[in-house]
């Protein structure tokens, strides 16, 4: 039921929504989250996303499976980009379709919160002066994931 994709290509939110809802009339709402590369005034020129091929897809499918046990879902989509991404570029898309809005919205938040702490991706920042730095894991992300338990 879940669609999981990892790759360099950008995604089209409308096309992903259309694929999620194609041929069905039982969906009452779709939650969506799009993560975007942000330039926060420190001269960021790119984010480079590295991942663990094989484990990444497995981890995302596991997360989607857990979401389907915890929420009343009719389908979900996770698309995560890798490689070098410029400020303003899409990084990640999460869609969750449900009969009602609460499950759609909660599952969307759950999916992105768990993805951030349980899927093997790493971000490296590149700056205008040539400096590069791996992004540190954030305690706030652990807390966001922990609020869902387990």
């Amino acid at each position, binding site marked *: 039921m879940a669609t999981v994709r990892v790759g360099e290509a950008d995604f089209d939110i409308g096309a992903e929504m259309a694929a999620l809802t194609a041929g069905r009339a039982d969906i009452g709402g779709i939650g969506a989250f799009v993560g975007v590369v942000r330039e926060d005034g420190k001269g960021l020129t790119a984010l480079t996303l590295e991942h663990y091929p094989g484990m990444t897809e497995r981890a995302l499918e596991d997360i989607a499976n857990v979401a389907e046990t915890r929420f009343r879902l009719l389908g979900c989509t996770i698309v995560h980009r890798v490689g070098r991404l410029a400020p303003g570029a899409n990084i990640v898309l999460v869609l969750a379709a449900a009969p009602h809005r609460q499950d759609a919205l909660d599952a969307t938040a759950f999916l992105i919160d768990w993805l951030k702490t349980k899927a093997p991706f790493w*971000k490296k920042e590149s700056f205008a002066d040539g400096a590069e730095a*791996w*992004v540190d894991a954030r305690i706030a992300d652990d807390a966001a994931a922990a609020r869902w338990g387990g």
Partner: protein
Amino acid sequence: MDAAVTTSAEPAAAPTGTLRVVYFAWLRERVGRGEEEVTVSAGIATVADLLAVLRARSPAHALAFSNTSSVRCAVNQEFAAPDAPVRPGDEVAFFPPVTGG
């Protein structure tokens, strides 16, 4: 298969062979390679044992593993704790805490 031949040729207690270690993100950069093979000797039963062996391999390994609180592990592509068993043929990954999304 002749079971008697297999039994006599291989001591049962100590499995030998190699496992594959893979590194990601700054661990890969600090070690200076993306993967390597490790011969599984009698002293390597867990992730922690393997980590001790890797740390002694070179100054770069020692530096990469100097702060294990910022090192995570997966055995055969599943997150694993330091006391998780490792065996010949396994793929053991070491990497920093994840930062996707």
